[in-house]
């Protein structure tokens, strides 16, 4: 034993005079800037998607209804409630939050005698740390728990497509579709918003798992026109997609198209198990073979009804065929969807206009029930001076004639009035035709709405410009200048606001700002009207109409005349997916009505 080993430990005594290191007041100790303390939630930004609840491995988070927050499109109306008896403060809920509304403060201590207060709704139950800036937030940059960027869709280049009507969107490959489907967080916000309430997360899951059959069945549960919807749906689901709040929304529409594209026509019945449906002996007449009519026909046929569709034109599809240009929705894809519905035993009588070739009263007599989905085919006019000139056209008429293969008048300088998707359709169709005819494009689309509130899809506007059409929004047309019976152009004035404070259509103009668009042909595309002349006076007396002349129907789209169900664009929309939803609902309504009657 060395003497040093005996003496050396006494050096510990020097610490007697050292400053103590203990924190005197632990309650006011501040956490580090990144400390994972107590939860905060920006209740206005939060959409109640529930992804935090999903990822929480302790089941510490429950989504609960909160007073003052209404369920609406894109918001479940629920907010996360955290139970600190279960939470382990991993902050994965913060990292995965789709809106970045959730964060943690750096508060260190929370002492209370009542155990129940530790189960609380951040942001709703006010806490001292609600306004604390510091604390855990999602790490930046390049830190994502799921991919925020959309897999780009391959399209024809503007130079390849500006002369032809070939479909411009190429569709996803298997690898691309699976990668895109992987981004879904399965919150289901889209289901509530989709008019047809499609099982979107389920079919996206099927894409991810390469289970096309399962996905295809899921599509047909709520939507019998997946090829069509997968191309031209207004995709309200994507608008509300929770992933879209801090990244690109899921390409739900393209994924739907991907599933439908993978299935060959001859496999449809096999996959969907729709062979040998028993006929129940009841007959239903459907007026119009648009989305609502086809949807109703499909679901009624599955229930065993004998369905006959009366179609005014020589081909089925309604506005989908006669209103949407081929480069967005090729005719063979329309046929693929329709042929399957026909294969279920649905009959179509073409070139038969109800009200002219056959009366509605006859249909009432011959059939157990009638569904009318006649849509909006009448163009609306701006009624400005000069709009009665022969070279002023309605967009719907031109689009129909293009589909029918008729030679239409294409001038060198064209102005399109309107800012919706139909206006973009005719603009882009005319641009193609001008390119074919003159080798150059000179078409201008002008709308009342400024660019930020234009009703057309953003990509339609962008693609129109790519195809060298001019989109010049925010102008209200005042008159068409005509000289020697020839159109010189369109006078417009600046539109300062379209809707009033109550949200009603009530445009205001600044008359001092005017502009003149030179043109020798003008196309009006400011909305469409319905033609329900086929409903005779005595039937109308049984029905109810609102002050604006629209038909009033119940939840099952049953009109006042009990045997007559009405749906599609004349009731809701106008778009394809509302039509499909209406048709499905009406089919259920017809079944219910006939069963109750019998």
């Amino acid at each position: 034993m060395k003497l040093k080993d005996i003496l050396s430990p006494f050096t510990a005594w020097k610490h007697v005079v050292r400053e103590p290191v203990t924190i005197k007041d632990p309650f006011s100790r501040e956490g580090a800037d990144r400390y994972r303390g107590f939860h905060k939630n920006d209740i206005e930004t939060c959409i109640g998607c529930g992804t935090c609840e999903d990822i929480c491995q302790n089941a510490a988070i429950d989504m609960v209804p909160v007073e003052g927050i209404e369920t609406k499109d894109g918001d479940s109306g629920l907010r996360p409630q955290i139970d600190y008896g279960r939470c382990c403060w991993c902050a994965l809920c913060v990292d995965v939050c789709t809106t970045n509304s959730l964060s943690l403060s750096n508060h260190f201590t929370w002492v209370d005698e009542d155990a129940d207060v530790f189960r609380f709704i951040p942001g709703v139950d006010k806490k001292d740390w609600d306004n604390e800036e510091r604390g855990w937030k999602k790490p930046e940059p390049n830190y994502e728990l799921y991919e925020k960027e959309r897999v780009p869709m391959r399209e024809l280049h503007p130079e390849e497509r500006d002369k032809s009507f070939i479909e411009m969107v190429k569709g996803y490959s298997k690898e691309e579709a699976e990668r895109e489907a992987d981004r879904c967080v399965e919150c289901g916000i889209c289901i509530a918003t989709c008019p047809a309430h499609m099982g979107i997360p389920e079919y996206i899951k099927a894409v991810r798992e390469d289970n096309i059959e399962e996905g295809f069945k899921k599509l047909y549960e709520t939507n019998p026109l997946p090829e069509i919807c997968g191309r031209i749906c207004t995709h309200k689901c994507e608008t509300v997609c929770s992933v879209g709040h801090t990244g690109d929304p899921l390409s739900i529409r393209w994924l739907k198209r991907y599933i439908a594209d993978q299935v060959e026509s001859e496999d449809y019945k096999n996959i969907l198990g729709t062979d040998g449906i028993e006929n129940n002996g009841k007959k239903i007449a459907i007026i119009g073979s648009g989305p609502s009519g086809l949807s109703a026909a499909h679901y009624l046929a599955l229930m065993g009804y004998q369905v006959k569709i009366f179609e005014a034109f020589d081909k089925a599809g309604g506005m989908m065929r006669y209103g949407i240009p081929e480069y967005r929705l090729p005719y063979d894809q329309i046929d693929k969807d329709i042929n399957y519905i026909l294969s279920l035993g649905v009959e179509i009588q073409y070139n038969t206009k109800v009200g002219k070739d056959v009366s509605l009263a006859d249909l009432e007599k011959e059939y157990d029930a009638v569904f009318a989905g006649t849509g909006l085919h009448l163009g609306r006019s701006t009624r400005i001076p000069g709009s009665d000139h022969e070279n002023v056209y309605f967009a719907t008429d031109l689009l129909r004639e293009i589909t029918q293969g008729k030679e239409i008048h294409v001038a060198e300088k064209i102005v399109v009035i309107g800012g919706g998707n139909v206006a973009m359709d005719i603009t882009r169709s005319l641009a193609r035709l001008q390119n074919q005819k003159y080798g150059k494009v000179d078409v201008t689309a002008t709308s009342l709405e400024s660019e930020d509130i234009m009703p057309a899809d953003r990509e339609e506007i962008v693609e129109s410009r790519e195809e060298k059409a001019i989109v010049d929004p925010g102008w209200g047309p005042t008159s068409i200048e005509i000289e020697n019976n020839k159109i010189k152009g369109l006078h417009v004035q600046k539109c300062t606001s379209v809707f009033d404070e109550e949200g009603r259509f009530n445009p205001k103009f600044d008359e001092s700002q005017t502009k003149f668009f030179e043109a020798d042909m003008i196309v009006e595309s400011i909305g469409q009207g319905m033609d329900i002349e086929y409903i005779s006076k005595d039937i109308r007396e049984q029905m109810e109409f609102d002050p604006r002349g629209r038909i009033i129907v119940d939840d099952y789209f049953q009109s006042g005349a009990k045997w007559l169900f009405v749906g599609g664009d004349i009731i809701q929309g106008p778009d394809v997916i509302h039509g499909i939803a209406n048709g499905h609902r009406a089919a259920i309504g017809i079944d219910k009505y006939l069963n109750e009657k019998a």
Partner: protein
Amino acid sequence: MNKKRFTINEDRSLFPEKNAEGKIDIDLSSHKYLKLWQGPQHPGITGNMSLELTVLGDEVMDCETHVGYLHRGFEKLMERRKYIQCFPIVCRVAVPEPDFNEYCFASAMEELAGIEVPEMAQWLRTLVLEMSRLQSYLMWIGGQSGAFGSGIIGQWSIYLRDLVLDRFEELTGGRVYHMYQLPGGVRGLLPDGFKQRMEETLLTIEKFMDDIDKVMFNNAVFKKRSVGMGYIDPSWVNKFGITGPNARAAGIPLDVRKDYPYLKYPELDFDVVVGKDSDIYTRADIRRKDLLLSVDLIRQIFAKMPEKGDIKAKTPNVLHWKVPKGETYSRAECTRGEYGYYMVSDGTEYPRRINVRGPSYTHAVALLEKMIINTNIADVAGLMVSLHTYPPEIER
């Protein structure tokens, strides 16, 4: 003072006498033997485990280890959790060393999924692992000297550990459970001024380690009780699966950081610390040197790591991440030896099997039961702490 003390070369197998089956005949009714439970509530025991001792006088004749006081069933739980949901669980497997669990779990997943972790994230992981080693040793050193009756070292070292935990709080957002090494990367860059504050902490640690050297290692009492005590024969190393400082004290240079280099260790300059006497004192000394090596490694990491860079690789959506079919074993050198995760994936969103290989299992059950025979009951706690075992990791 004719108390029987064991020296290194004495054959332990001779006493007490064994019967034909090779066991001791313990007849409790003879009043010669006494059953004594050390733990699970005993200040001298690490964590919640207990030793069922059979003593003859104050000498241990037989020992049976009992675990199960802290069983949380993590391995089974993980089979019912998505991969990302296992991430907050794994750090809790070994309470004082969460980071090695996080690293092994993440790297096993990354290996199965074929994900390359960005350079910056690898440096940050290396840093966090060394910081974790530092705080774990600091906790141990207080326990070791405390078990031999000196409380002062524990007061210093827990203070030092808290300084390291303060740095962890800044970097990872948590003090004890860091939940920092996410599969694919890490959860944050160094905060502003972190290097400087860490350097201050390292200087404080070095200063105190000088004092600890004087008060604990150059201490007649400590030497008297630890030199020659708790001998581990080098030939047992393979038989018992001994790794880490316990093996290195026996002269066998086992160190995963060198043997199976991972993260940025190949770019760091260090030698494996090896001893030769294989007693409690040597093991303590090895750990003290290893602690100082960690201080040095942290400085090297700061000098070599880039200022900025990606912290996370792109991974599939964690909410439904299907790890490709396969199995793997990922390992790291923790303070007590080789730490490993054996992971089997059947290609679904849930792990099929995760087995945690913690060094405490081999050290605290089989090895301790053998070593403890014929020691004085007063030395049991010190012997156990010298193996540096964490019961939560034995039970998972």
